[in-house]
Every structure is written in structure tokens, then in C-alpha cells.
């Protein structure tokens, strides 16, 4: 030990350096640290898998060597100029690619289970709450880029729309300037994840509302004297498809997002009522929908350019709820069965229809087309829940199992809405 008289600066420093020894953390701390970081790492994974995340990583990898300390200034500058030119070319290619949206990674499934908003990893089935349990979230949707979830709360006769990051941060209310009542349709996102289309009652009339998710600003897009249901964005984000309801029935129309050029696209459906536009083909040419009466229901697709419809399912089937695969090659739909519905799949023109899963409702496709979201309710009522299945009917996986305390027909999963970033029936 050293005393005050003999302690030099070197001795002081040496004494302090003796503190620098290896130590072992408490295993309980390691476990709790991991548990606390697990969700954040998953959220990071999802963000990195988005196109923006991939672009950022690629840009970083491109520029890192050029900025390295070993590179001379002139080489760095030349490399930077070359990379900027490459970036310009890549940007033009990217802009072109964005006009034809490519399937994204699946990302998190966002669902409201007993009112609690949860982020579910479809790969592992693990779930984590996004918001406190006291927020009763309904009408859930998720942005195509996987970063934002929106949901409605309906309390004391008042509907409020919120957005929140899928990591639970940055929760904010949208459309605060309007007093509306949410009509339980499925909210859909523009492909750039910037806008949400939703159906609300405004001034006593069902109307389509477009909401800027970044600013919260909202405006109705359909005329004030027209009852309009079930909004759906076009792939190029310029149009909204919806179901106008008049005294003569329900049709299928489109309208530009500035409220102009509204027109019918379904053509003559021989007296059948349209349930609503379900999904839009990725090339923008077709809108899939079902139409029927109390006795029949068929799946159709309407041509945007020709303004006619084609029936895609056989007269003998009562078919509903069509979802186009992200690449546009196939459609999934459900068919009436004695115990509920069966899940079917066919080519996009309706050919080669076949059942892939019995006792299953349809929740849409994953962004990469690898999976279909289903509500599986087997006839024996022993198992089931909200889950995924491959388009060939294999690899059925339940993510939200049925809960006996929530037995209300097709809502036995206790969920009050879900979103996977894709339009769905």
C-alpha cells in the first residue's frame, strides 16, 4: 500500500489502473437484460428488412470503403463521384421499381387481442404488447413498410383514430379536426405508407376519408350526398375504389384522391350487389370483389380500363372475400361450407380453382406471397385460431388461438382487427 508522502503521479495512475480487471455479471442481470432487449432487436430487424432499411445499409456499405482512412483524398473523391453517379442511376431504377411495387418482407402482424394492441412475429409466433391493456383498439391496420399501426377507439359514442409505431413509440391521434364515427370496414394504406383510407360516418352519411398519417390531416374524398363504403387504394396511389350505395343497389366505383373523376367500373352485374372492393391486382388493371344476392355470391374482377366485370367462380359455389396474391398470379377466396367457410385458391383469371383448407376464413396474403392469413375453425371445434398457411394448404400455424371466453362466431380469437400491411377482404 502507498501512503500520501510517497505517492507520485505515476503511482496514483497505477493504483487507479488496478481497477481495470475483468468481472462477471450476475446471470440474472444477463437474463433480464436480454429479455428487455429482445423486442427492440426484433423491431430493428423489421425496420432493417424494409426497403428503406435495405437502402440505408447498402448505401453505408458502398460509402464505407471510400471514406476509409487508408484511401487518399483524390481516390476518395473520385470514388465518391463515381458512387454518386451510380446512386443517380440506381435512384432512377428505384423510382421505376417503386411504380411497380415489389413484395416486401412480411414484417410483424399487428392485432388487437381483447382490445390490447400486439405485435406478433409470424415466424416465431411470439407476441409483445404495443400499448397498455386499457386501450381498447379496434379496426387495426399496418402500414406496408411495417413501421406504423393505426387503430380506432370507440368510447362513449366517440370514434378516435390513432397511429403508433410498431415498437409502441410515437403514439398520436389522427383526424382530430373532424367529428366522425368509424364504420367497421377495413382501413387500407397507400403503397407509400403515407396515407390511410377509412370509412366513417360524417354528417350522417357513410363517406371515405383520406388521412395523412404524418400530419394527421384528414379530408373526405367522396361527395357528401353519396353513401360510400369499403375504400381500397390503387397500386399507383392515385385512385380509391369503393362501393357506392344508392336506391338501386351497391356498385363498384373509383374516384381520384382529389375527389374528381368518379365513375363506375363494374359494368352490368345483372342485379347483383357488390359487397366491396377486396383487393387490386398489382398491375392496377383489375379489382377483385364479390357480388351477389341473398341466394348467390360470386367472385368477380372488374377491368379498370374496359369497365366490365368477369365472373371468376362457378355458379354452384357461394364464394366471397377475394385476395389477389402480391405478384398478381393467384387469388384466394372463401366458399360457403356447412360448418362455415373453406379456403380456396385459383389462378387470377379464375382457372384451376381448388380448396386448400377446410373450415378457414381468409385474412389476406403475406407481402411476399409465401403465406395466407387464415381464421381456421375446424368442424370439431377442438382447435383453431388466427394463423398462417402456405398457398398449397400446408404448414398451418396458429398465431392467436381461439379463446373459449370469446365465443362469438368468427371472433373466437378475441381479436378486434389485424393488419399485415396488405389489402385484404
Amino acid at each position, binding site marked *: 500500500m502507498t501512503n500520501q508522502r510517497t505517492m507520485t503521479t505515476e503511482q496514483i495512475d497505477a493504483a*487507479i489502473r488496478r481497477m*481495470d480487471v475483468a468481472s462477471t*455479471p450476475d446471470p440474472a442481470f444477463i437474463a433480464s*437484460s436480454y429479455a428487455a432487449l429482445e423486442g427492440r432487436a426484433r423491431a*430493428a*430487424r423489421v425496420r432493417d428488412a424494409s426497403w428503406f432499411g435495405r437502402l440505408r*445499409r447498402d448505401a453505408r456499405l458502398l460509402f*464505407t470503403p471510400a471514406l476509409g482512412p*487508408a484511401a487518399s483524398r483524390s481516390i476518395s473523391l473520385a470514388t465518391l463521384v463515381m458512387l454518386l453517379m451510380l446512386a443517380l442511376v440506381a435512384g432512377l431504377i428505384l423510382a421505376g421499381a417503386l411504380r411497380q411495387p415489389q413484395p416486401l418482407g412480411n414484417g410483424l402482424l399487428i392485432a388487437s387481442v381483447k382490445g390490447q394492441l400486439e405485435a406478433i412475429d409470424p415466424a416465431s409466433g411470439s407476441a409483445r404488447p404495443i400499448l397498455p391493456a386499457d386501450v381498447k383498439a379496434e379496426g387495426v391496420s399496418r402500414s406496408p413498410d411495417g413501421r406504423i399501426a393505426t387503430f380506432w377507439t370507440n368510447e362513449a359514442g366517440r370514434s378516435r383514430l390513432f397511429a403508433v409505431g410498431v415498437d409502441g413509440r410515437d403514439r398520436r391521434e389522427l383526424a382530430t379536426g373532424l367529428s366522425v364515427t368509424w364504420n367497421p370496414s377495413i382501413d387500407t394504406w397507400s403503397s407509400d405508407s403515407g396515407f390511410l383510407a377509412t370509412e366513417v360516418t360524417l354528417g350522417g352519411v357513410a363517406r371515405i376519408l383520406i388521412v395523412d398519417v404524418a400530419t394527421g390531416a384528414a379530408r373526405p374524398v367522396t361527395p357528401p350526398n353519396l353513401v360510400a363504403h369499403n375504400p381500397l387504394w390503387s397500386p399507383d396511389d392515385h385512385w380509391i375504389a369503393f362501393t357506392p350505395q344508392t336506391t338501386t343497389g351497391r356498385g363498384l366505383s373509383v374516384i381520384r384522391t382529389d375527389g374528381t373523376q368518379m365513375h363506375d367500373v363494374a359494368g352490368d352485374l345483372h342485379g347483383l350487389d357488390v359487397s366491396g372492393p377486396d383487393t387490386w391486382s398489382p398491375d392496377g388493371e383489375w379489382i377483385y370483389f364479390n357480388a351477389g344476392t341473398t341466394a348467390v355470391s360470386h367472385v368477380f374482377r372488374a377491368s379498370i380500363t374496359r369497365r366490365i366485370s368477369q365472373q371468376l367462380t362457378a355458379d354452384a359455389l357461394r364464394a366471397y372475400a377475394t385476395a389477389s396474391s402480391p405478384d398478381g398470379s393467384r387469388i384466394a377466396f372463401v366458399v360457403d361450407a356447412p360448418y362455415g367457410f373453406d379456403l380456396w385458391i385459383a389462378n387470377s383469371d379464375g382457372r384451376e380453382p381448388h380448396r386448400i383448407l377446410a373450415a378457414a376464413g381468409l385474412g389476406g396474403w403475406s407481402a411476399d406471397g409465401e403465406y395466407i392469413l387464415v381464421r381456421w375453425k375446424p368442424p370439431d371445434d377442438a382447435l383453431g385460431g388466427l394463423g398462417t398457411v402456405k398457398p398449397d394448404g400446408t404448414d398451418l400455424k396458429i398465431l392467436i388461438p381461439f379463446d373459449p371466453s370469446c365465443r362469438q362466431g368468427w371472433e373466437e380469437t378475441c381479436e378486434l382487427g389485424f393488419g399485415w400491411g396488405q389489402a385484404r377482404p
Partner: protein
Amino acid sequence: MTTQTGEAEAVNELEAALDNDRAFESWHRRMLPRVYSYLLSRCAGDVTLAEELTQQTFIAAIDRRSRFDGRSDAITWLCGIARHKLADHFRSREREERRQMQIQVRQIELDYHARNQMGLEDRTLIAETLRSLPASQRAVLVFVVLDDLPVGEAARLMGKSRGATESLLFRAREGFRRAYAREVAS
């Protein structure tokens, strides 16, 4: 060529760790003890503080993963983040000390008395001595002596001028000398 391969591997190390749950757990298990060890020795043996700063370091690492360019080992990068967390802590303590100087001095003295009854090892004595110093003095000793940073770099971390940091380092060493002697004597 070798350097480039090393960089690519380092980039891949962090990206691979975030690729799936198992990889992240393995990476976390490998890295956490080293970050913790780095921090514990610089927190004068304060386990709670070291754990808290370790956790903050990993959170920041995930949030700032895009800034990891792979030019250093992941552990070097993590310790760099940890060092900033430590600097933040010292700054915060310094502000707190200014507000509650009288109360704190009294508490430290009582604490020493209790611990001396238990008989302290030499390293514990050094830790106690360090802990008795004001936060700013502790910070400059940690950064300059333990981390071997140039005074200018330590000054930048602490948000002080180079001159003020040199003066602080002198006072810190003097303070350590006096406090250590006091500890030995007691």
C-alpha cells in the same frame, strides 16, 4: 485485402446478430460481460450503476446500429458507446453534486465508516477512494488514466475546454492522493 475482409466480417457480425433471436442471444451473451466489465471498473465497483449503463449501452447500440461501419470490432464500438454513457452519467452526477453537496458528503462519510468496519481489500479501497471524489474528477481519471484517452478527447467527452480538463486532472490526482491517504489512515 485483409482489412476489407475484417471490416466485412465486423459488419456482418452486428447484422447477423440482429438476423434472428438465437443469433442475437448468442451475441448478447458474448458481448455483455465485456461491456459490463469495462463499465464496472469505471464505476468504482458500483454494480447497480454498471448494470444500468450496460443496458443503456445495448439499447443505444441497437438504435444506432446503422452507425457501426465495421472499421472496429463490435466490442470496441460498444465500449465507445459505453464511454459516452459513462460521460453522461458523470455529467449528471456533477450537476446533482452541485445541488446537494452538503448532504452527499455526510452520506459518504457515514458509508465509509460502515464499510471500514468490514475490512476492505486494496482494490476496494481504491474504489472507495475514487467514489469519494467529485464526479468530474472521477470522470477525468477514468477517461485519461483508465481509458488512456488524450486530454483533448477526454475534454470533448466531458464537454469542457482542454485547459479546464488539464486543471481538473491535476486536481483529481491531488484529490485521489489525499483521499487515498485518508482511507489508509482510517
